[in-house]
């Protein structure tokens, strides 16, 4: 049964783990600096350690605000806080577990008619304001320290990355410890009065009843981290401000420091020993502190990157959370106390409806007994005044017995009537609850319907966008194809130019040779003729275009790989020279040009063309160069 009552606290712990672990490791996981698995393992271990070792300080302060003295009350208070956190998270309103639990405790105080300690409340509220401010101040100081350090040391970017990764793990572990130490009060603080009194001996160490409770809460937080925090962590990066990995360290470290300060008993005692006022040990909102830290960094950089709309939403959440939790707690306590007849506090433990009915009935019985007594006295007086005969006295005694019997019946009737009233009251409440459940279900179904409708319309939009995207992609591909085609044309032109260059060179040398022949015919000087012969020989040697040709053909082969591939697949029986001829024809070169390039006569080129046509099985009406162009 106790475990059932603890379930609301465990649910709150789960919510806390799901939401607040993102404050510690969100940036690291969101930016892929640390894997989620590693982050979850470290966070879980250190949250549990923080809760068990240092969780008592903040719990004590929360206890001062309102010591929820019955486990039923603690269950209801924790459940109200948990539901507030759950609903607000569901509707994406920034929420703080600390504020929710404080609101719920105040609701409990109201319900039980107990005064709320204003000093403690103001202390808590002041830390809510101080937490983010302190977070911002720490963030600014740490930023300057980090900036100066990296400037002086000048570490390689990759080494810096490795150090940051390691630092994120260390700071994350510290942050998780502080989160466990400070926020376990939110989860298990209200159950402290119901903690077991016996110690649990693990051999190396012992756990007190409260520590056992905190261990359980810590495990609930760890489950929350493992099961739900990933999706929160994945989205936290793009929230209030885009964070770099360096900024992530600063924000997490300043957040951890603030949480540590507000939960460390040792630090508070140390400050006190210096003659300073003690640090209030209060559960502060982890989310608020991290927001303060990010805000501090944002303001330091000119405040351009801050998402002020989201900031407004967060501020609204700060006010709304305790109010909603308080109201919810008040009504939940009423239901639990009056419908389920579970005591919600030790003071009003007897004030359950059962006891109220019992008291009311006792009171009525007393009244009726008095009435009965007075009735008997009256009748005796009446009888004494009118006591004429013994028989008359006997008669009056009989009358008295009748009356007594009558009043007894009246008492029973009155009791039954009260029972009936109680029944009607319970029935009314039951109907009320059913009506609320029906209303909530209808709202829920309505929201599902709306959501589905929204999803359908969004899907339609996505489809439209995909269509548009597909069109753009098609256009892009067409453009890309055109670019490739242009590039190919350019290359082919380059190739043609090179070929023409070779031909021109050849022609020029031929011209020179014919001129030499002419000069030889016109002169009889043997010395000049000898020199002209040498020159003729030199030109002939230089005219050997084999090297140029090889280079050119290599280039042709390189550029027309695709064309050769296609040619091979359609006409596999073509020789290498025929394939090259195909390329020249594709480049729209004349037979004369091809002849010069391949060092054969134009007639041979014509013959090669004829043979090629035959091999390709072309009809009379088909033009060879067009077939090759279209290939």
């Amino acid at each position, binding site marked *: 049964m106790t475990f059932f009552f603890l379930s609301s606290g465990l649910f709150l712990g789960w919510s806390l783990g799901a939401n607040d672990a993102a404050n510690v490791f969100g940036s690291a996981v969101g930016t892929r600096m640390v894997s989620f698995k590693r982050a979850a393992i470290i966070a879980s271990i250190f949250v549990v350690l923080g809760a068990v070792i240092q969780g008592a300080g903040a719990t004590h302060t929360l206890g001062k605000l309102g010591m929820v003295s019955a486990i039923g009350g603690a269950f209801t208070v924790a459940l109200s806080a948990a539901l507030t956190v759950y609903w607000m998270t569901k509707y994406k309103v920034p929420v703080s577990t600390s504020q929710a639990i404080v609101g719920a405790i105040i609701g409990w105080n109201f319900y039980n008619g107990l005064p709320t300690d204003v000093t403690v409340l103001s202390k808590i509220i002041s830390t809510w304001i101080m937490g983010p401010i302190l977070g911002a101040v720490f963030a600014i100081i740490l930023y300057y320290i980090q*900036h100066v350090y990296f400037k002086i040391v000048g570490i390689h*970017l*990759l*080494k810096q990355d490795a150090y940051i990764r390691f630092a994120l793990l260390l700071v994350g572990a510290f942050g998780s410890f502080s989160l466990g130490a400070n926020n376990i009060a939110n989860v298990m603080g209200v159950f402290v009065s119901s903690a077991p009194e016996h110690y649990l001996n693990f051999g190396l160490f012992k756990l007190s009843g409260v520590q056992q409770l905190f261990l359980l809460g810590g495990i609930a937080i760890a489950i929350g981290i493992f099961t739900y925090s990933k999706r929160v962590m994945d989205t936290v990066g793009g929230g209030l401000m885009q964070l770099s990995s360096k900024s992530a360290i600063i924000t997490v470290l300043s957040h951890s420091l603030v949480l540590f300060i507000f939960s460390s008993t040792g630090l508070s005692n140390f400050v006190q020993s210096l003659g300073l006022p003690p640090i209030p040990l209060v559960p502060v909102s982890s989310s608020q502190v991290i927001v303060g830290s990010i805000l501090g960094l944002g303001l330091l950089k000119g405040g351009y990157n801050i998402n002020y709309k989201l900031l407004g939403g967060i501020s609204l959440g700060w006010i709304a959370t305790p109010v909603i939790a308080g109201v919810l707690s008040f009504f939940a306590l009423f239901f639990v106390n009056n419908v389920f007849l579970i005591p919600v506090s030790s003071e009003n433990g007897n004030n359950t409806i059962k006891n109220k009915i019992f008291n009311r009935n006792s009171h009525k019985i007393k009244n009726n007994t008095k009435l009965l007594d007075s009735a008997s006295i009256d009748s005796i007086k009446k009888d004494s005044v009118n006591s004429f005969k013994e028989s008359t006295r006997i008669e009056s005694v009989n009358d008295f017995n009748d009356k007594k019997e009558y009043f007894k019946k009246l008492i029973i009737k009155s009791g039954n009537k009260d029972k009936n009233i109680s029944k009607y009251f319970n029935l009314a409440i039951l109907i009320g609850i059913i009506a609320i459940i029906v209303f909530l279900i209808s709202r829920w179904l309505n929201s599902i319907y709306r959501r589905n409708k929204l999803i359908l319309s969004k899907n339609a939009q996505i489809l439209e966008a995909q269509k548009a995207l597909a069109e753009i992609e098609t256009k892009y591909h067409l453009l890309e194809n055109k670019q490739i085609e242009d590039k190919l044309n350019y290359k082919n032109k380059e190739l043609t130019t090179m070929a023409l260059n070779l031909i021109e060179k050849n022609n020029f040398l031929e011209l020179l040779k014919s001129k030499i022949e002419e000069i030889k015919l016109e002169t009889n000087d043997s010395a000049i003729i000898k020199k002209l012969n040498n020159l003729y020989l030199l030109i002939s040697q230089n005219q050997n275009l084999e090297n140029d040709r090889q280079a050119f053909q290599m280039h042709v082969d390189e550029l027309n790989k695709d064309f050769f591939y296609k040619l091979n697949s359609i006409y596999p029986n073509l020789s290498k020279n025929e394939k090259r001829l195909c390329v020249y024809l594709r480049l729209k070169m004349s037979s004369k040009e091809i002849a010069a390039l391949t060092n054969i006569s134009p007639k041979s080129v014509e013959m090669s063309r004829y043979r090629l046509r035959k091999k390709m099985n072309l009809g009379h009406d088909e033009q060879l160069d067009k077939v090759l162009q279209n290939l």
Partner: protein
Amino acid sequence: MFFKKTKSTIRDIDEFLNTIDQGILVFKEGVKYYLENDDDNFSKNLEKLYKLEAKADTIVLKIRNEFFEHSLIPQYSADVVSLLDHLDDIIDTAKENLFQYDVEVPDIPKKLNSEFSKLTDVSCAAAEAVIPAVRSFFNNPSSIKDNEHRVYFYEKETDVLASDLKRKIFKDTKHLKLSQKIHLRYFTLHIEQISDRAEDAARILSALAIKTKD
């Protein structure tokens, strides 16, 4: 655990940058040997450049794998890998150019030798300037500006020199055939491409410098 992989990646990046740097030097020398008709040394340089280009490709692939496998500097990894790819493009272009010299054997008139040589030097200077800029990005991002402005300067100089050379080819060398002139123009374009690739890398570097600035 964190530092072992980091050290090896840093070594790879350094080796990659050295390879690119050496590739640019080899290309520059290769062009000079071509202009001086020193076929033996030209062939040696071409072979050397082939090897350096292949080495650069292997290293860049290794670095890319390391970046994505171990999610190193995840926020900028895509940009850094793109930067390295652009640096790899420089050596690819250099190799392609020298190969074209070997294959097409452009007939460069002697009087244009000095212009071609100067164009090659300036274009390579842009590529050479991008290497220290990249090194400074990794070691001290705030000093990128000290180096990257040189890249833009040399790239512009290359454009000016290439325009002058093209004008000279088409106007001052009347003894050349049009086809020969067009052939030479292609080679000025090819040389210009090296500084263009360097400029592309410098642009990515500038964007990275802004992104990494806190």
